[in-house]
């Protein structure tokens, strides 16, 4: 919808000929696509199409059997998840992966781990850098808490929160890292319409205000069409479509494989 007024930058992420198999199961076959800076790219496809696997390849949880990922100009075949984190890639999970025993505040604070660097001794004594940095980062975390409107639950252990709020906290934790690339795996699954609207707004705001590039997986076609600049369609591990929402709506292969089913 807003691809014309949005200022897209150069290519930030490029997947080239990615293939990934688990034993006999071919999760991804020869997938290539690009993501531009500031873009919102949606990956859609039926269950088991390989969408989550694709995100896992991008941030180093899975290592592809073939192909390469180029991120910010650096080509890499194998990388560990924490290396992806240091390069500014953050993500949320399809099945919420929060730290259940910790409060909302601590979960989001944990998202800032890489930005903190007080030494061990300072942490033991809670003096100097350790103390200042806790306070400094707490401010940033409170901004995120305000942005996501979860002030009232900041001290609650996340395990006690309803599903929709957990998803929101998980987004907060990812945002805490101030990522350049944000990967969202079904951020709105299982939400009611109101919650979906809130979440959509947060995603658009993040993209607008911080210029964060976003790759998201979503099943709700209404949401996908509204949010995304471009859509990549996967089916049985193969890419069967890549284009703007209107391109995809009119793509014969996509309609046959996917859209036709729900329409």
């Amino acid at each position, binding site marked *: 919808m807003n691809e014309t007024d949005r200022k897209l930058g150069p290519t930030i992420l490029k997947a080239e000929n990615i293939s990934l198999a688990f034993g006999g199961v071919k999760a991804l076959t020869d997938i290539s696509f690009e993501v531009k800076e500031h873009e919102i790219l949606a990956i859609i496809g039926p269950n088991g199409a390989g969408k989550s696997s694709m995100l896992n390849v991008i941030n180093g949880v899975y290592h592809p059997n073939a192909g390469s990922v180029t991120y910010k100009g650096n080509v890499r075949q194998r990388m*560990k998840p*924490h290396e992806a984190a240091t390069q500014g890639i953050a993500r949320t999970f399809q099945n919420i992966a*929060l*730290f259940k025993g910790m409060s909302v505040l601590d979960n989001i604070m944990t998202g800032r781990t890489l930005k903190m660097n*007080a030494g061990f001794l300072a*942490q033991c004594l*809670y003096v100097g850098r350790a103390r200042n940095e806790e306070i400094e980062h707490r401010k940033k975390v409170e901004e995120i808490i305000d942005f996501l409107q979860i002030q009232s639950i900041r001290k609650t252990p996340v395990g006690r929160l309803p599903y929709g709020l957990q998803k929101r906290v998980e987004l907060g934790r990812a945002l805490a890292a101030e990522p350049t690339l944000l990967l969202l795996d079904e951020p709105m699954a299982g939400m009611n319409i109101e919650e979906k609207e809130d979440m959509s707004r947060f995603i658009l705001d993040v993209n607008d205000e911080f210029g964060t590039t976003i790759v998201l997986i979503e099943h709700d076609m209404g949401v996908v069409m509204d949010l995304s600049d471009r859509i990549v369609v996967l089916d049985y591990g193969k890419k069967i479509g890549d284009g703007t929402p209107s391109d995809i709506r009119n793509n014969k292969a996509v309609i046959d494989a996917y859209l036709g089913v729900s329409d």
Partner: protein
Amino acid sequence: MFYREAGQFKTSYKADQAVFPIFQDRVFVAIWLLIGFVVVPMLANEYVFRAIFIPVIIMALAAIGLNLLVGYCGQVSLGSGAFMAVGAYAAYNFMIRIPELNPLICFLLGGLSATVVGVIFGIPSLRIKGFYLAVATLALQFFTDWTFSRIDWFTNYTPSGSIAVQPVAVWGFIFDSPIRKYFLCLTVLLIFTIIAKNLVRGRIGRAWMATRDMDVAAEIIGIRPIYAKLSAFAVSSFFIGVAGALWAFVHLGSWEPLAFDINLSFSILFMVIIGGLGSIVGGMLGATFITLLPLFLNQLPIWLGINMSTAMVSHLEYMIFGALIIFFLAVEPLGLARIWQITKEKLRLWPFPH
């Protein structure tokens, strides 16, 4: 005075991040310190120091150490007895081989030796979890049992294999009476408790808890599992190693390798489970409870006027332990610390629960 938050608005994040953000909590802590450092020394007699306070304090230190690893970082360990042994024997060897060293420095070096062993035996945790990790730490237990009873160098070739030491003397001050020992142990516990509290509320503590709760997500945030797990092993073994040195030098005075066997490992683990996983105060409550229970059970028949054999009493002890462990694991995994917290929360709302 009422225990509540109302009217105490935190005006800065600094205030909110204080260890005890609620004023009444600070008062509580002050009262406990007063009891520990003033009231108890005035009231307690030698027996009570020797049989209760000193062992409880040292075990609390060990339990807090183990809790950092098990409760906060989620890595099961059955090797606490071994880490205590390493702390004790290393401190002993530093002391006899470098007599100029201050004994307190030797205790810290004992702790550091336990840290080294802890990090080495923590390496399997990068690959294995839960039950298998527990078995790997159990191997350490057998390894130290064997090392300290078979390699005579560690016991300085004493013919019996047991070690006897002089009371600790620091700068001419001799910790020979129970009350002096008590003050020494209490001060050490206080310092280590503050360090533990500082660690768990900061970055490293969050890294441990994140690794415990969801290791994949932790790694994606940028927490390297090797760093989180090995640092937990390191800090935890340091605490337990120092506790071991205190146990040997201050509490026992003379000991043999059997003093640090698998039973000790289990006791400390029980303290952590019953006291409360992932809670500093839990370590203290657990240590108190598990040290006092046998004493209590021994007295109970006498109070009740029942004739019970000592064998019966010790069987009873095991049965009660067993039942309690099952109760806490199944019903209240957060242990005594949670019960303590619930009481406080009730108190906070009292007398209007709604």
